[in-house]
């Protein structure tokens, strides 16, 4: 066994200092499940392992069309009860239709987030954070940018549990979202085309990035509004639609908006959740086909309540 590796893991476990708090995205009666394609409004001790994504990019007639498979992992760690970090990294396989396949890591992403508002009566969570994409940490061959970006972001989650009782069937609805502005580390970049061997110069526009989810919590319905007598496995499902878009706002020279609409469901267990969503391309210009994303997500505060599941500092 690799001793430095074991030592690093042991140190990480030892660093988890004592404390106790609520690591889930919880506001009053509302539990916000972890969304698959956009970030959550809460900080947490959780891990997504793995997130598997499949989507065909480009039309069959397109020489550059390919089937893309992404396998990602994310680790979320609270520093204090309301401040956390996240690390996201993944591996990409592009199975090209008319060319040889490409493989490599995507760029490393890290997030620093502060959850500054948790309002129980109104089931409201809000956070602010900064996402750093580390340019050059992934493989250029699979589209990982050579230069990085920095994205200040606002996160929010709002449950509808404070609606009047006359609208009680709408109370299980919740809405989450993110709004961010992505600054590119450098406005233009030069890269080597793997096929032609030519140097290409491209514009790196700043982007307005946003995401949203609309979800209907069957667990909330069963526990707070009306017990429909559903089997336990069915009573743990949250149907959900997520969407995310990125629009160029500067130097857009030919760079198109990108985005997806992702309908699916999340099944919440006691210490993990499973999510499955279709990935429907948003802008038609991309010629992408419908794909899917599947995720297994672990609640480390429930699995390791006395070690990895606690914030490093404070209660």
């Amino acid at each position, binding site marked *: 066994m690799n001793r430095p590796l*074991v030592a690093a893991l042991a140190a990480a476990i030892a660093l988890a200092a004592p404390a106790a708090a609520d690591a889930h995205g919880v506001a009053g009666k509302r539990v916000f499940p972890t969304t698959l394609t956009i970030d959550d409004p809460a900080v947490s001790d959780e891990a997504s392992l793995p997130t598997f994504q499949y989507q065909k990019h480009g039309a069959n007639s397109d020489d550059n069309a390919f089937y893309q498979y992404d396998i990602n992992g994310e680790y979320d760690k609270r520093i204090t009860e309301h401040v956390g970090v996240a690390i996201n990294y993944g591996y990409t396989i592009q199975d090209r239709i008319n060319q040889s396949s490409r493989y490599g890591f995507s760029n490393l992403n890290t997030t620093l987030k502060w959850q500054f508002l948790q309002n129980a009566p109104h089931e409201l969570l809000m956070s602010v954070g900064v996402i750093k994409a580390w340019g050059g940490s992934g493989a250029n061959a699979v589209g990982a940018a050579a230069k990085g970006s920095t994205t200040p972001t606002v996160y929010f989650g709002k449950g509808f549990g404070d609606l009047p009782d006359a609208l009680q069937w709408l109370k299980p609805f919740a809405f989450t979202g993110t709004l961010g502005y992505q600054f590119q580390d450098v406005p233009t970049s030069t890269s080597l085309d793997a096929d032609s061997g030519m140097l290409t110069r491209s514009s790196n526009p700043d982007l307005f990035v946003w995401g949203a989810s609309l979800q209907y919590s069957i667990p909330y319905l069963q*526990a707070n509004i009306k017990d429909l007598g559903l089997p336990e496995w069915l009573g743990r499902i949250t149907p959900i639609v997520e969407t995310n878009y990125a629009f160029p706002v500067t130097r857009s020279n030919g760079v198109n908006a990108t985005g997806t609409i992702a309908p699916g469901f999340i099944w919440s267990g006691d210490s993990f959740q499973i999510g499955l969503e279709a990935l429907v391309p948003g802008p038609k210009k991309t010629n992408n086909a419908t794909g899917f994303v599947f995720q297994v997500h*672990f609640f480390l505060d429930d699995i390791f*309540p006395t070690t990895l599941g606690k914030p490093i500092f404070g209660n």
Partner: protein
Amino acid sequence: MRSTWQRVLLILLAIFLAAPPASAHAFLERASPAVGSTIHAAPAEITLRFTEPIEPAFSTVQVTGPGGERVEAGVPRVDASAPAVLRVPLKALGPGSYKVVWRVVSVDSHVTDGDFKFTVAP
């Protein structure tokens, strides 16, 4: 010869397998009278079944009647044979709508709360 990634995966797997039994948040799984139900016979007690064992010393249940009056006849007690079940004795209930407000602490100290209504029909 194993790659570094294989070693990392093996270590992560070992950590998860070596983890103590998960003791997660206690969410309400079933209640009697059922959430949102209408019943014709007044219940003698409220029974709340949670997804995890709970700590009775730090858990509360309040039941209020149609006029806002409290109708519990005693403190919540955990079922001796089922540590995830909380029972609350009730006074004699007349017809009307009743609201149950609960707040429980699971044995690993996670706090959850919720509320629901049931109706006693004449």
